[in-house]
């Protein structure tokens, strides 16, 4: 695959920051509320058992509702999830190999525990990555850091996080430029071998370091004292409380009543 296309896909991430500038009610909601609910959602997803599959499906309602009320472009969010989920999936990929106990018999076909837990991990990663992506697209990274701080995370940590986030983009941009320069001068395919990669990476890190430093200088030159000020000041009011409590109740309910199973029982109860 071409580096340029990876670069493009990653640069596309910056669109997330633009989306966060939107004006829907969800955008205006205090970041703390969105952060808490998302964390609670992720906690709920993670708390399911190893073989849970159908039980988690109703949770999809959260990302879907948030994305549509926040007027986020569904295709874009889906692409981001597809790009990020594989990292989580790598972990799950080994499960079918290790866990071969057959759990479900569909006629002659036996589905092993490995495959079920694999699907479980797949669903989990889609749900958590989706929720996190939507949180960032609705709130913006600086505001999330600020919310973390207001919720008691040490200042040092949140400032580090904000910088990490900024430098990530710097790294991506520098990487893009560097790879373009390399491709343009590597006539045909010669010189594009793996051999030219090592110095490239070293160069990339040095350049990123240098630029990050100059950007930091520019921030200091404009009165930066370690705190990102936000234009949208908000407070945790009644709407936030309603939002947080409402979703929390929904998650708890979905967690303890396996909705598809209940439905199934109702349906089979009727038919039998």
């Amino acid at each position, binding site marked *: 695959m071409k580096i340029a296309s990876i670069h493009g896909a990653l*640069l596309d991430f910056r669109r997330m920051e633009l989306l966060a500038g939107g004006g829907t009610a969800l955008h205006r909601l205090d970041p703390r509320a969105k952060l808490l609910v998302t964390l609670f959602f992720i906690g709920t997803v993670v708390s399911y058992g190893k073989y849970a599959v159908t039980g988690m499906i109703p949770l999809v309602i959260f990302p879907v509702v948030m994305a549509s009320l926040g007027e986020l472009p569904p295709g874009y969010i889906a692409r981001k999830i597809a790009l990020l989920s594989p990292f989580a999936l790598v972990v799950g990929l080994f499960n079918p190999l290790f866990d071969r106990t057959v759990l479900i018999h569909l006629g002659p076909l036996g589905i092993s525990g490995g495959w079920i837990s694999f699907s479980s991990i797949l669903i989990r990663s889609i749900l958590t990555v989706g929720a996190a992506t939507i949180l960032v697209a609705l709130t913006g990274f600086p505001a999330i850091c600020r919310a973390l701080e207001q919720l008691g995370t040490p200042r040092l940590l949140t400032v580090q996080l904000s910088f990490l986030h900024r430098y990530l983009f710097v790294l991506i941009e520098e990487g893009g430029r560097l790879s373009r320069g390399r491709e343009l001068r590597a006539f045909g395919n010669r010189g594009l071998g793996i051999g030219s990669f090592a110095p490239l990476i070293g160069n990339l890190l040095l350049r990123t370091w240098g630029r990050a430093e*100059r950007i930091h*200088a520019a921030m200091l*030159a404009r*009165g930066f*004292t370690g705190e990102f000020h936000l234009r949208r000041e908000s407070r945790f009011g009644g709407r936030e409380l309603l939002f947080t409590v409402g979703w929390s109740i929904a998650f708890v309910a979905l967690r303890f009543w396996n909705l598809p199973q209940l439905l199934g029982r109702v349906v089979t109860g009727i038919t039998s």
Partner: protein
Amino acid sequence: MNHPAVELCNLSHLYPDGTVALRDISFTVSQGESVAIIGANGAGKSTLLLHLNGVLATTGGEVRINGVQLAKGTLPYVRRSVGMVFQEPDDQLFMPTVHDDVAFGPLNLGLTGRELERRVQESLHRVGIAHLRGKAPYNLSGGEKKRAAIATVLAMAPEILVMDEPTSGLDPHARRQLVGLLREFPHTRIFTSHDLDMVLELCPRTIVLHEGVVAADGPTEGIFRDDDLLARCRLEKPFSMQGCPVCGKINQRQGDMDQI
């Protein structure tokens, strides 16, 4: 206030790799003055400017801004007083939108609400990019980035404006606009430029750097007429002071100056 705006005493700078970029630089710039710093590539102009708001620390000598010596404790004051436009606009723009970027400085100064909005709009208008306020800085053209970078500094309403090659990469119209803007700027201005016509137009005084030392410091017109000095420092006369290549006639402006 009778302190000079900027005062450099025996300023030297040695980069960690051993390059001596500046050697024993001393000069003062008085309040309200407009000064150009010129010199060939690598002469040390950018290095010099980066000392004026403490981005680089001196390795010898001292810097005073409005009489206040630059030191760790005075950095916040100095940075509030000196607005700096870097040579590379990509280093200066880091927020998700142009508007956010311009608002970054005033927010740090404690501005909010209406006042903040007004500051941002005004700065964007002054450099003619109000229509780009919602765009992402990394999606702008080179010249647009440059103008956005200038807006971010104007929004801070600095007392001393320092710009590293403000007109590089601008189209003629934007350049003209910027020259007008700089001319009207009421406070102290210091900038480097390879655009010597702009220097001639805006700065009564010019400082020539050559290999890290001050080669000349004086009235701009005198410096541009010193052919030896220009040749020694790898500089050329501004176009407006060169003869017309077609008819050989010296420009009107030059004629005026010869009468002075």
